[in-house]
């Protein structure tokens, strides 16, 4: 079985800041990482391949530096890595991104038909969760989103458990299928040394727009009907009041209580008028 995992290299969002003047992301000096959901997707693919036989190909569309995210995925057990990199892809929104990925999957289909495509639920920078469903739509594949467990792959069908509002649902879908996966699907392995070494040495296939065919006007900026109008940081929360305890503790407590009563009087009156302590904890 040929499984494809789509991965995205993202800035380590724990480090990203927004420039307050220009309202753009400050990416300088920020490390890039593989989108955490996508590592789960690769691991899931490798587990399926290990259990039922087959291989995993990882694909990313991105700049040449995305190489390192692909290598990380190889170290987890993926057999091949493809980097879709071309000036023509620049400025892609989710529609163009999913179109580009679809062309790549089509190309793979020609030689090694793909039964399963696995995406992360969302990218931690773009956060739209649209790319996977977009790709499933272009490919006309069964679409199974928010997967938390892969129960079985058999007789041309896949059975998964997915998270839905208010509970989970077990669902069986026909292959080829596209999954988008949640973090709790499976933990990601710590690569063995031989696998890590293989990933460091393996060649990564780089494909451009010409290599994957498709309609040129659907790529990149031209193929992107959406554009980002503005990025802004929400106003920071004001800091809490600090009560210095060094000098006179009685006074500090008094200050605190008076501030508290002034500000929180509504809450307090509610608390005091209720009869149990449960209510107070809800506040």
């Amino acid at each position, binding site marked *: 079985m040929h499984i494809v995992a789509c991965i995205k290299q993202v800035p380590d969002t724990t480090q990203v800041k927004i420039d307050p003047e220009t309202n753009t992301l400050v990416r300088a000096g920020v*490390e890039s990482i593989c989108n955490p959901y996508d590592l789960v997707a690769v691991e899931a693919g490798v587990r399926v391949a290990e259990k039922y036989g087959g291989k995993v190909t990882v694909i990313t569309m991105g700049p040449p530096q995305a190489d390192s995210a692909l290598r990380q995925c190889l170290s987890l057990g993926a057999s091949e890595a493809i980097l879709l990199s071309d000036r023509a892809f620049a400025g892609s929104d989710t529609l163009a991104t999913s179109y580009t990925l679809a062309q790549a999957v089509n190309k793979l289909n020609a030689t090694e038909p793909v039964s399963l495509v696995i995406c992360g639920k969302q990218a931690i920078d773009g956060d739209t969760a649209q790319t996977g469903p977009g790709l499933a739509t272009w490919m006309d594949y069964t679409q199974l989103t928010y997967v938390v467990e892969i129960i079985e792959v058999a007789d041309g069908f896949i059975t998964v458990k997915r998270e839905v509002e208010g509970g989970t649902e077990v669902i069986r879908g026909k292959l080829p299928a596209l999954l988008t996966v949640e973090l709790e699907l499976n933990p990601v392995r*710590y*690569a*063995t*040394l*031989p696998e*890590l*070494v293989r990933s*460091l*040495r393996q060649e990564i296939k780089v494909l451009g727009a010409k290599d994957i065919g498709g309609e040129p006007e659907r790529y990149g900026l031209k193929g992107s009907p959406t554009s980002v109008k503005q990025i802004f940081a929400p106003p920071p929360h004001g800091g809490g009041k600090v009560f210095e305890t060094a000098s006179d503790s009685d006074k500090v407590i008094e200050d605190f209580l008076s501030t508290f009563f002034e500000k929180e009087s509504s809450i307090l009156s509610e608390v005091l008028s209720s009869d149990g302590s449960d209510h107070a904890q809800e506040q």
Partner: protein
Amino acid sequence: MKEAFDVAIVGAGPAGTSAACILAGAGVKTILFERGEYPGAKNMSGGVLYGQELARVLPDFAERKLPIERNIIESRLWYLSKEGGYNLGYRDAIFATERKHNVFTVGRARFDRWYAEQARQKGVLVVPGTVVVDLLRDGSGRVTGVVTGRAEGEVTAQVTLLADGVNSPLAALTGFRREVKPEHVALAVKEVIDLPAEVVDQRFGVSGGNGVTTEVLGDIVGGMNGVGVLYTNSASISLCIGANLADFATFKLKPYELIEEFKQHPMVAPLIAGGKSLEYVAHWLPEGGYDTIPRLYGDGYLIAGDSAMLFNAPHREGSNLAMASGRMAAETVIEALERGDCSRKSLADYGERMAQSFVLQDMKKYRGFGPFLHHHKEIFNELPRAATFAGREMITVNGVSKREKQKLIFRNARKETSLLKYLKLLWSGWRAVK
């Protein structure tokens, strides 16, 4: 892992990567392990590097897009008391032209990564994110490779180079190095202050990517044996202050208190005014000197850089000694592999090369420097106080005759400490560095 290598190197700092570049250049099959996510990820940001030694490893480093912060054209030495201080500096245009890149500042996170990438391009297998947890040995005790923290993580090699830095659990585990005593290391903290490049240019009177380094001595380390430094980066200033670890314990001081005080010193504050603190890191430095250097080689292994306690304190050239020792280790290994003999005897050449080079010669020259500072705390206390008194007195114009002022200064200096002590200090200071 089944695959065997000629050389396994532990640590992709200046020492390990220098060795790796030289080895790969000679076609030696080399694997380089780094525990950080990438080389440099775990290293102190910011520092001074030296072009001459780097050029011996990578002659064309300037064309390889070396990520330089600033090319250093002036070195300053400050001797400070709490309130003021003396400034001695030397600037020379030759360091911007003919001798460009003699000394320059780099961000270590970027430099180490770049350096390891050069090694990779030369054919080294650079394996990041992997900790070496033990060494492999055969029945006779000969080192035959490394054990990493990953599954199937054993790698055999004819020679193993330990370049894992000062804080080496491996050295302790394998017993190749005596356990480090607190008095043999310094604890340093560094803070990077963000400032626009134009502001740095203006405050230090430089332009065109040039910069200034400042070494700081005196009463800035709470009376402990320690130093401070202040380096210019492209668009930031690195401040660093450190003292002997044993002193920290005795004096019950906290590193962050030192750096806060340092930042408020009247000579420092205006240089960093308005800057945001970008990062704060703490690290050890080996400063035990010549007498704490372990045996540098044995059957199947060599030790280089900080791991071998190679640090010459008065010149803060740690990375220079690391690169030079890494290079010499590699040169030794290349010949040993050609002979097909990586025994202790065959690797003894490393000791020879080191002894004949500036590395051990400088270490030997300053053998007594550490103990000298340790036993003469007046350098950090009475002396800067007396010097401040003198400076203030000489510069204050108040109708008192210069001769009278000299007398005053002399009397004050003797009040701080006895004449005999000054003489002793001079004498042992001279002996420590002669």
